[in-house]
């Protein structure tokens, strides 16, 4: 039977505020345990949560970026459950009236096609603390620094039909929240997390199959692996005559499997009700329009501009705009290089990205600034150095101080266009290889490459290749 995969995602983006969603405690990552958990975060009696202004602005900004409806009135509700890292016994979240509803976002698939994914909603909520299961004399340690950190939970419709589409969507959201400056996107630190709802159904059937929820998958690679594993498991189970149980499953990267969460809990019964500590949040048109003016150029707009104004291919533009820092780096490089967008794109996506990857750095930590890279590209363009020499200059730029010009000067890498000098080398090479000269002259033109190699080698790569070709041809003929 042909099966169709149906995936919806729930993404938790930690909002990049200084203080918590309902208290003035710091949200800085990595502090000593429980030094950033105040009485409000701990839910001590008599405290009153008050909403952070910045949290609201960020949620509205996100809503506008995905062309969603912004609720003029949204309401916070209590989601009740017991767990030690949830000190109040409930999480403040939004249920019936979320701040953002009905958005959409376009993703680009591998074959270059685009697809629109609908977003059901995005709502505000507080994060829980952390449980540390290392052995504390048989007990569990609780750090509540993260409790009360603002989260935007972004929920998609079940619009994705493969793990690859799910990853493409997740990457789009990841890129968007960073463009908007509302989330740092750091997946290692848990600032950006994803749950996936996965089901399968016979192709052509309209009714959705029973879904399972894959929890807390913290890398793009794992999202793809976890979904594919779960799809395989579900299809096998159904084909063997079994039925899918609606449940929450964890992806175990070490064992490369998904398995049900061990839980003695009864089926979740969160008993949502409006939080009496918080009043309805109201926003008016003037506020929404004021936030709209803060929208930066979004990835899709930037991509279109790169294609139209800088004549980049759709693929190049997509890659360069996936990350705001990369797009900014590219634009600064083009400016420093006085144009040459295509050459800049090639060097950034080729040498630079490869070198960054090799040294485990991201673009913001690059040893080479856009100004220095732009300087290198200018020298390639005006033929001061060949493409091959440019690669060594790039290496020097990465490992040493100085501009491209200074390095070319210091290392004596300037391309040689003095034909007298090149002719002298050619003469030497021909004298030392009489056999090959004979072969060439008797019609074996393949050995031409041999001479080019020898001449380039003797000039330490500095001879202008086009000139070498021309002069060699002349000399070998005579």
């Amino acid at each position: 039977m042909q099966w169709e995969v149906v995936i919806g995602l729930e993404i938790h983006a930690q909002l990049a505020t200084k203080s918590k969603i309902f208290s003035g405690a710091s949200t800085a990552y990595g502090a000593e345990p429980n030094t950033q958990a105040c009485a409000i975060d701990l839910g001590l009696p008599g405290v009153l949560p008050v909403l952070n202004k910045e949290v609201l602005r960020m949620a509205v900004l996100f809503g506008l970026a995905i062309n969603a409806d912004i609720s003029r009135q949204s309401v916070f509700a209590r989601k009740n459950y017991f767990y030690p890292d949830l000190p109040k016994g409930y999480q403040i979240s939004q249920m019936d009236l979320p701040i953002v509803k009905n958005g959409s976002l376009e993703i680009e698939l591998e074959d270059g096609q685009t697809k629109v994914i609908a977003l059901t909603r995005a709502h505000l909520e507080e994060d829980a603390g952390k449980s540390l299961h290392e052995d504390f004399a048989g007990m569990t340690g609780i750090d509540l620094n993260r409790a009360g950190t603002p989260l935007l939970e972004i929920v998609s419709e079940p619009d994705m039909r493969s793990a690859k589409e799910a990853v493409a969507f997740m990457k789009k959201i990841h890129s968007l929240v960073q463009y908007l400056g509302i989330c740092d996107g750091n997946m290692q630190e848990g600032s950006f997390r994803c749950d996936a709802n996965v089901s399968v159904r016979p192709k052509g059937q309209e009714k959705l199959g029973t879904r399972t929820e894959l929890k807390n998958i913290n890398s793009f690679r794992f999202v793809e692996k976890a979904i594919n594993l779960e799809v395989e498991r579900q299809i096998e189970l159904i084909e063997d005559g079994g039925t899918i149980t609606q449940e929450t499953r964890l992806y175990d990267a070490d064992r490369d499997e998904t398995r049900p969460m061990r839980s003695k809990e009864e089926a979740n019964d969160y008993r949502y009700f409006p939080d009496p500590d918080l009043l309805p949040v109201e926003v008016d048109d003037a506020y929404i329009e004021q936030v709209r003016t803060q929208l930066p150029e979004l990835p899709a707009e930037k991509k279109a501009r790169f294609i139209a104004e800088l004549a980049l291919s759709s693929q190049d533009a997509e890659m360069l705009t996936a990350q705001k820092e990369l797009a900014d780096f590219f634009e600064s490089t083009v400016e420093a290089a006085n144009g040459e967008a295509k050459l800049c794109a090639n060097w950034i996506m080729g040498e630079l990205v490869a070198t960054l990857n090799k040294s485990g750095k991201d673009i913001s930590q690059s040893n080479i600034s856009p100004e220095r890279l732009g300087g290198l590209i200018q020298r390639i363009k005006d033929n001061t150095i060949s493409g091959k020499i440019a690669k060594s200059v790039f290496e020097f730029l990465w490992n040493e101080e100085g501009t491209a010009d200074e390095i070319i000067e210091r290392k004596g890498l300037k391309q040689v266009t003095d034909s007298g000098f090149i002719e002298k080398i050619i003469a030497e090479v021909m004298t030392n290889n009489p056999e090959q000269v004979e072969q060439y002259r008797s019609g074996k033109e393949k050995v031409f490459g041999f001479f080019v190699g020898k001449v380039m080698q003797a000039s330490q790569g500095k001879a202008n290749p086009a000139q070498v070709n021309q002069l060699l041809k002349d000399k070998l003929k005579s």
Partner: protein
Amino acid sequence: MSLQPNEIEKIAHLARLAISETDKSVYAENLSSILDLVEQMNAVNTADIVPLAHPLNEPQRLRDDVTSETDQRELLQENSPTVEKGLFLVPKVLE
């Protein structure tokens, strides 16, 4: 509406309350009478009434995004029976 003993058990479990066998019927009776009151309100036609999220008919006040709290760990952990390396310790939970 009258609640059954198994429903009382479920509600007690969700609230993490231990209740004695003898109290169950008392709770069943009390909670049922609350539900009866709701039932009574259900009879009123509310089709044209906008749901009220909060009895104070006012919008939420907002605070500026500034860190105003200082580290009070020592004070706040005074109530905790067990503390180690700055962590609250609780009976082992493993999910």
